[in-house]
């Protein structure tokens, strides 16, 4: 039996064979030039381009891991929110007086809504037969203006954003449990916590958690300083210094 032609199916309810003719896509022979079969010639080239694209994409992915901030805390106040970069232009739009406050609906609904409807209706707004962008200047200009203003708004929003504060406010803070009744902690809160934080998590000075510090190193830093840390921060007896060094060293190894 000839494959795919004139077969009889038991209980066939489909349209008769003779009207089941395949209407081929538009023929390109009217355009001068070389066509190429999609399967397998062109598809193979597409796959090669895809492979190169994938390699580039994977290199970027591995070089720059996806960010993760600390767990959401709904009670936190003063967090400056920032949407993903492709919503920044909308976000920036809402910062202008003409599109915020009592006119908020202009920035949130009217302008984006008009843009969305205009995009959907583009084939009916631009009905001419001409396809070259230069021959339909109005459509081209509107699109270019929209595009440029989106880039401008995105740029403006990144300039006005406080990136340093944004990095600080979302940072994952490592915490460890330790005994706050330890005499070493009393010394720590008197001498060190104003810079290194109440829980050794760091503030002006760096976090001490997970640093695996040697007691001798802690003693040296507390008395002689080093790096950003000034000398003579610790005030007390040598016995206290030993207790402090032991405490900080132990917690830093947790």
């Amino acid at each position, binding site marked *: *039996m000839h*494959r*795919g032609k004139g*077969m009889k199916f038991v209980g066939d309810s489909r349209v008769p064979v003779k009207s089941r003719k*395949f209407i081929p*896509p*538009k023929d*390109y022979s009217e*355009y001068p*030039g*070389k*066509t*190429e*079969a*999609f*399967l397998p010639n*062109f598809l193979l080239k597409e796959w090669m*381009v*895809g492979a190169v*694209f*994938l390699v580039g994409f994977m290199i*970027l*992915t*591995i070089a*720059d*891991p*996806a*960010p*993760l*901030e*600390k*767990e*959401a805390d*709904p009670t*936190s106040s003063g*967090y400056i929110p*920032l*949407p*993903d*970069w*492709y*919503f920044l232009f*909308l*976000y920036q739009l*809402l910062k202008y007086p003409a599109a915020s406050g009592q006119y908020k*609906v202009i920035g*949130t*609904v009217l302008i984006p809504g008009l843009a*969305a409807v205009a995009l*959907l209706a*583009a*084939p009916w707004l631009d009905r001419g037969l*001409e396809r*070259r*962008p230069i021959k339909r200047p109005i*459509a081209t200009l509107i*699109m270019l203006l929209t595009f440029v203003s989106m880039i401008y708004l995105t740029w403006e929003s990144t300039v006005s954003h406080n990136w340093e504060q944004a990095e600080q*406010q*979302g940072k*994952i803070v490592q915490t460890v449990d330790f005994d706050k009744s330890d005499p070493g902690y009393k010394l720590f809160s008197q001498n060190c916590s104003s810079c290194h934080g109440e829980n050794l998590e760091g503030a002006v000075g760096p976090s001490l958690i997970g640093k695996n510090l040697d007691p001798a190193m802690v003693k040296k830093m507390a008395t002689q300083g080093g790096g950003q840390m000034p000398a003579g921060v610790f005030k007390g007896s040598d016995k206290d210094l030993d207790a402090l060094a032991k405490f900080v060293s132990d917690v830093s190894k947790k």
Partner: protein
Amino acid sequence: MLQKLYDWVDERLDITPLWRDVADHEVPEHVNPAYHFSAFVYCFGGLTFFTIVIQILSGMFLTMYYVPDINNAWDSVYYLQNQVAYGVIVRGMHHWGASVTIVMVFLHTLRVFFTGAYKKPRELNWIVGVLLFFVILGLGFTGYLLPWDMKALFATKVGLDIAASFPFIGDWIKVLLQGSDIVGAQTLARFFAIHVFFLPAALLGLLAAHFLMIRRQGISGPL
């Protein structure tokens, strides 16, 4: 062997015309970068589809570890990022792939617009394309909340306030998306369902329509 198997299936189901309709066509010269390098602009649509495939596959693997619950969501992402073998790569692919998809959709839209390819008889395919663009933006918005970190929570609050400013039905939309009076457990569950089931279903349906129409009408001719 394979040929015999194919023949066996084809004899019963007549599958040859099915794939021939899709696969048997000529690629015209003006869209083929092998002949004119500038024709690479016609690759953006295909690359968009490629990035969407990356998103679907990496997303499927992410759901093996992700827990859509406010107590565990962040911890599951942190665990995936720091403990699971190659978890950081799979999450990275989904995170950066989202941005690359948006960029590719943008470039593809601009190419179609500036070559006037949306004109008659391709208006319907343009509409489906714009709807796909909106669905992809929706996927970006709902996916941003799922890691349940600080920026996710507070950006979603802003987004829902924007939705609430819609005249007349704004509050209704906000409650529909938020699920409760605050951005919380219900919101995360809803955004997860929308991000993983509702929008991908719409995406796949629209993509099928997009591709069927392209096969039916062919690529628009040279300028």
